[in-house]
């Protein structure tokens, strides 16, 4: 994007102020005029990609709203790849998943694949040429033959990994919400994060009954779920992705 919309900075804590100063907002509309498309509007909240960063920081997810979308796309790619492998499992007794669990995971696999494909379609539509590449998952630390890891296992079982991915996804969307500048994108993120929360609660109940919103994930005093920054989330997810990702400009 040629247009420069600056991050709102200190406005974040000043609720009564308009979201942007008038002059910035004017350039927002001027940009929309220059491209005469609805999609330009949804892009208008994005600042330039800072692609002149040091080369070894990894693949940049991008800045502004496109960065947030690519960030979500990266996480959904990871989740979708994981559940695709779960879906391919043959249910067996003992270490495998029960049939009802497998049936429900097949549905979760579809939800995550939909999220991934939706972001792909939305980014290609609203920010042509800016989409994050296809990522290569690295699941060597997951033992897909185990329902749950035992104390002696070094690798995660299927449910351990699913719980980690779902809780991380919830924290990621919760933390990314305020970085979003386009209301329509915020609505979409909100529509997805509650589904991730439903998944998280479901998986947690399988791991430990009664832990759907236990004190280790929902603060007992404030009653709040976790929220994490993109950099922290990518750091946590990086071990499951072959490509190194740079989330430092997401939302900026």
């Amino acid at each position, binding site marked *: 994007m040629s247009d420069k919309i600056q991050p709102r900075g200190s406005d974040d804590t000043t609720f009564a102020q308009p979201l942007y100063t*008038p002059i910035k907002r004017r350039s927002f509309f*001027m940009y929309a005029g220059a491209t005469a498309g*609805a999609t330009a509007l949804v892009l208008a909240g994005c600042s330039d990609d800072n692609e002149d960063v040091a080369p070894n920081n990894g693949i940049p997810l991008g800045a502004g709203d496109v960065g947030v979308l690519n960030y979500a796309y990266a996480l959904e790619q990871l989740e979708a790849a994981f559940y695709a492998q779960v879906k391919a499992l043959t249910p067996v007794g003992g270490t495998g998943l029960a049939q009802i669990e497998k049936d429900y995971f097949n549905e979760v696999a579809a939800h995550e694949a939909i999220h991934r494909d939706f972001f792909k379609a939305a980014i290609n539509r609203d920010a042509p040429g800016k989409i994050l590449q296809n990522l290569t998952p690295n699941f060597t630390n997951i033992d897909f033959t185990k329902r749950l890891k035992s104390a002696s296992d070094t690798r995660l079982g299927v449910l351990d990994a699913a719980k980690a991915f779902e809780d991380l996804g919830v924290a990621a969307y919760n933390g990314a919400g305020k970085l979003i500048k386009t209301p329509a994108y915020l609505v979409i993120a909100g529509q997805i994060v509650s589904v991730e929360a439903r998944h998280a609660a479901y998986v947690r109940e399988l791991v430990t009954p009664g832990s759907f919103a236990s004190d280790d994930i929902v603060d007992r005093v404030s009653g709040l779920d976790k929220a994490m920054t993109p950099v922290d989330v990518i750091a946590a997810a990086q071990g499951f992705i072959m490509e190194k990702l740079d989330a430092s400009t997401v939302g900026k």
Partner: protein
Amino acid sequence: MDFFKIIDQLSEVDADVLGRFDSRRAVFGSLGTAAKRSALAAAPLFLGALFQKAYAGTTATPVEVLQYALALELFEQDFYKKVQASAQYTTASAADKAAIDQIKRHEDAHATLLAGAIRGLGAVPVTGVTFKQAAFAGLVTFKTGPAATTQLGVAQLLEDTGVRAYKGRAGELLGTDLLTVALQIHSVEGRHAAKIRGMRGQRAWVNPADDLAAHPVYTSGVTAGSTPGAFGLVVPPYTAASPREDNTVQSNVPITTGLGTPYTAADAQASFDEFLQVAEVLDNSRAGIFIGA
């Protein structure tokens, strides 16, 4: 006509004109649609509507949004308080009781947190939002039997509605730290909804096979008897029904057919929760009918 010149001229006279547009989020949707159609002929009409909307009212303040959230939390809190005090609860399993206790603890925490935030912004928190005693008396069992007469059946409606209600106002907190807090509450409501659904033997996510799938909560917008203004809540103008839970189109993308890979309607519905506007949440077809003494 030069749309952008008009905007510029207006912004010279009224420096906040663009703020007014932004405060009316719905305008962005209309603008996008209109621009996409390239309907130049319709532009003057559309612009008239745009300006009318921009100046028609003031935007909701963060306090109004927080009061609304607090009212819903108080309502849920009172519901679970009534559950805990009921004979049905005493006969529930230890695991089910523990889940209700944990959910109630969160609703307490949310109410305390929101009331504190409202006081911090210099306003007086709403109080006295309760679950109607007569309606509660009709919930004859804890979880067995028809959903509409069980405590957990109604709990599912309340939690799913709560999830939708937070979504409906998140945009009014765009870019603020309050938004983060609202989202952190919102996902907890999602976890609650999933657990209640599990306790009832339903899927954790919205599904056409749900026993409540045909309930007005999932299938319609405002029906009748809206209760705006109760507890001093500000109800933003309501113009069109929010998408139903069986919606399969998101951001103009048909999820079942538009993503390259075909997906079932059930999966498309379940992969996105929908939002609800204030008037819909407070309507008698949803939470409104249960709110009262």
